[in-house]
């Protein structure tokens, strides 16, 4: 079992170096399936700090890009590195991933979080308090003992985020976490993500909702047909997009 590390301070315990995953860098990343190029030589570096929103129309390759960066799929060309080295399973807990459709283990809400902590090598005696903290941060302490799979869609997504944050990751990657939720649940998720970001977690957030991008983004990566069409600070992106595709998307007249 790995020693427990105090990630919140960003430092190591004693002489133990903290496992770093940032910056996450994809260089020349391509993905091809069935003769189609789905990601086309994408170069993207996610530095510690800002909240990056990845935008683009349906089928642009946003989910693929996020999965490649998280090392869930291998690029056919190019490479992904975490903090300058090849991704490793040992460091996966330092990178929280939230899927569009939350995947809940067949256990109670708190046991879902405990499971993630166990995998991350957190000592047993710390798991309970950290799991409770994570649930409280998501406003789910009341539902700690409920089977995770009977929670509502919004509750499940908040739990998925709490589970991803429980291991104190350096970065939280979210793939359209509010796609199936009503406006109230959507705002609750945005609030949860914003608080994590303010607490020091770097965030990459995929959405095709312009309003959501305006509310959250420090910077925007705009993906179109498997390529990065634009990568700019949010204010600049919305005020004067430099690419035709992004301009069309903002005006709501983009054909994928």
């Amino acid at each position, binding site marked *: 079992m790995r020693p427990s590390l105090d990630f919140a301070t960003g430092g190591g315990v004693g002489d133990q170096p903290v496992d770093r995953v940032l910056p996450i860098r994809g260089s020349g990343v391509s993905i091809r399936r069935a003769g189609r190029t789905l990601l086309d030589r994408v170069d993207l570096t996610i530095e510690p700090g800002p909240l990056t929103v990845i935008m683009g129309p349906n089928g642009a390759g946003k989910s693929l890009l996020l999965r490649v960066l998280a090392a*869930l799929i291998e690029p056919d060309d190019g490479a992904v590195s975490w903090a300058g080295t090849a991704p490793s399973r040992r*460091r996966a807990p330092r990178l929280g991933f939230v*899927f569009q459709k939350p995947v809940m283990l067949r256990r109670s809400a708190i046991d879902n979080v405990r499971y993630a902590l166990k*995998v*991350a090598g957190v000592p047993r005696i710390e798991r309970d308090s950290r799991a409770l903290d994570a649930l409280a941060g998501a406003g789910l302490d009341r539902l700690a003992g409920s089977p995770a799979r*009977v929670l509502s869609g919004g509750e499940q997504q908040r739990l998925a985020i709490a589970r991803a944050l429980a291991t104190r990751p350096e970065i939280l990657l979210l793939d359209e976490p509010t796609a199936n939720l009503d406006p109230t649940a959507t705002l609750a998720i945005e609030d949860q993500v914003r608080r994590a970001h303010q607490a020091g977690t770097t965030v990459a957030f995929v959405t095709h909702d312009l309003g959501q991008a305006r509310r959250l983004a420090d910077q925007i990566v705009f993906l179109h047909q498997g390529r990065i069409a634009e990568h700019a600070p949010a204010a600049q992106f919305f005020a004067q997009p430099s690419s035709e595709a992004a301009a069309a998307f903002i005006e709501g007249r983009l054909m994928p």
Partner: protein
Amino acid sequence: MQDFGSAFGEAFRLVVVLDPALVEIVALSLRVSLTAVLAAGLVGLPIGAALAVVRFPGRSVALVGLNALMGLPPVVVGLLVYLALSRAGPLGPLGLLYTPTAMIIAQMILVIPIIAAVSRQTIEDMKDEYDEQLRALGVGPFGMVATLLWDARFSLLTAMLAGFGRAVAEVGAVIIVGGNINHVTRVMTTAIALETSKGDLALALGLGLILLVLAITVNAAVMALRRTAGHASFA
């Protein structure tokens, strides 16, 4: 030959007073079939889990084969085990023919495909759902299998119960390799099959009654398991 009415009466009496001959037969049946199912689980669950998780060439052929094996006729299994265990067979020197061990082996072979096929299906469906999430959490291949087995435990238990139901009710295999020897290898189904023709209707009926109750109990247990698992959303 007794008339039916008195045979029924006698059958109930045997069950109610726990007639020693009847209890002996029922106990042996349970011992043989439970042991066979547990052993089949030890073999079948890992096979099912491996087939669900590991990709290899020829996998789809193996799956078709496995599904076909689920319908193995008990008499054929009995015959094959008989050939293996008979004096001239490869395992003849072990002297297992006409022992409870031989019956356990036969029923185990009968049940392994059921447990392996059902657990393969269950675990594979769950893997499709869990795979990326678990990898994102940093779970390795062994942790993945352990998690899948644990989270699928209700369905796997259901498969084991179904296997038990099949084992305890089959007659073809145990009659060939066990031989229905009184006090040694006589189980419920072989007793029913052979005592009926010898005219001991009461014993046969009493055993039939118990077998029926067992079958109903197993099915009720399966349904109850499904329901609790469903309610708690563990299904």
